[in-house]
């Protein structure tokens, strides 16, 4: 907790697929909307979520429990769960791109915000977005690859904030 009693939320975003991008941005932006002080540390595969050009996709092959449904057509068609064998999702070129566009359409149909919108809300609500300096060096990212309004830092930077936080999650 801060000295003035404000609740603090410390999150680590370690995954960069579209589905994994939602939890940190939803929680961070909403915590800030609830007058909490929030920091998100973007490390390893979570780091590209700070890139100006967001390319996050879903990966059905790596997530066999992902419901495979179509976001258009009659209700019976939309409710049908497509049994896509791993042998198909793993080898068909562009399968992730196709599944990603279906997922994005479904989100839009259901009134779910895009990652870009949630990230913008985080910046507006003054969420501290910290890019992991070590991950930048390892994967060759530069400061100018990222959106404005972020900080660079390392484990100690995050832990100093997290040490007196009320909520701390590794995502």
């Amino acid at each position, binding site marked *: 907790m801060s000295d003035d009693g404000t609740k603090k939320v410390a999150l680590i975003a370690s995954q960069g697929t579209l589905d994994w991008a939602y939890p940190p941005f939803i929680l961070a*932006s909403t915590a800030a*909307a*609830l007058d909490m002080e929030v920091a998100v540390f973007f490390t390893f595969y979570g780091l590209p979520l700070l890139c100006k050009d967001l390319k996050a996709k879903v990966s059905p092959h790596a997530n066999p429990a992902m419901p495979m449904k179509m976001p258009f057509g009659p209700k019976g068609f939309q409710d049908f769960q497509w049994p896509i064998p791993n042998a198909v999702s793993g080898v068909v070129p562009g399968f992730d791109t196709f599944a990603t566009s279906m997922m994005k359409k479904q989100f839009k149909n259901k009134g779910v*915000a895009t990652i870009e919108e949630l990230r913008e*809300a985080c910046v507006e*609500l003054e969420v501290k977005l910290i890019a992991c300096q070590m991950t930048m060096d390892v994967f060759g990212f530069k400061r100018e690859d990222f959106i404005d309004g972020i900080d660079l830092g390392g484990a100690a930077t995050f832990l100093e904030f997290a040490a007196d936080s009320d909520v701390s999650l590794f995502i």
Partner: protein
Amino acid sequence: MSDITPTQELDARGLNCPLPVHRTKQAIKGLESGDVLKVIASDPGSVADMAAFSRRTHHEILDQSEGDGEFVFFFKVK
């Protein structure tokens, strides 16, 4: 129907979690203490979420109702 006259009205219908809460927060930012914000949402999850938002931010819910798949909240700005 509530007889409270809102200062401002927010249509959050069609939006899903967490957008109704976000839009409410944004709208309240532009209002002054004592003003009343009316929010209309269609997300059933907003009933629990608006209550949580109110408890944490101390913007009081003066009145709320639901019907025809819509949920209406009256917030008094702190």
